[in-house]
């Protein structure tokens, strides 16, 4: 699994003020994990490389968005644990 300097876990929809705050804090060695309402962002273009951007599968499925993201970018809760454990730091936005 890829290891990030900081893993940013974002559970806010794109209109939320903390959404843009989170994007502004993402450094070049960081990863982004979209959860809960954060997964709504997969319908939009994000200024982050696809290899560094993930979304939580159950939240995508719940919102009918599974087809919007390739399988290598979707993670289960097991995958979320792996990402959160291997990153040097985690910020929950």
């Amino acid at each position: 699994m890829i290891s990030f300097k900081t893993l940013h876990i974002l559970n806010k929809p794109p209109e939320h003020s903390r959404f843009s705050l989170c994007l502004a804090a993402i450094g070049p060695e960081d990863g982004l994990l979209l959860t809960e309402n954060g997964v709504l962002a997969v319908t939009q273009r994000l200024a982050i490389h696809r290899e560094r951007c993930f979304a939580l599968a159950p939240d995508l499925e719940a919102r009918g968005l599974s087809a919007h993201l390739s399988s290598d970018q979707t993670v289960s809760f097991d995958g979320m644990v792996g990402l959160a454990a291997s990153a040097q730091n985690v910020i929950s936005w």
Partner: protein
Amino acid sequence: MSTLIIIDQPPYGSWDGREALDMAFSLAAFDQPVSLLFCGAGVNWLRKGQDAAKVQQKSIERNLSAAPIFGVEALLADSDACGRYGLAESDLLEHAIITDFGPELTNRFDHVAFAG
């Protein structure tokens, strides 16, 4: 272990900011390095001249002014947000420092957390 507590909620209209301050003061009380960063509408916590008596709340201005005495290392204010809310350095509480928000800032801390 250094911690940055971020406050992005404006004062008095929600309790999140107060509970974030409690977190920062608790860390400081246990001699853990902690700084506060005010972002977005949260920069309004730092405006001089607050009087919350008529909204029946405690003014946080005195608490914040005493933050360095309690052991909080820095009161940081996001420069973009200060610009949006018309806050120059002279409008801010003593000890507040205007700074740029981004990974260079958050990377300086081991923990970055919100209260809610």
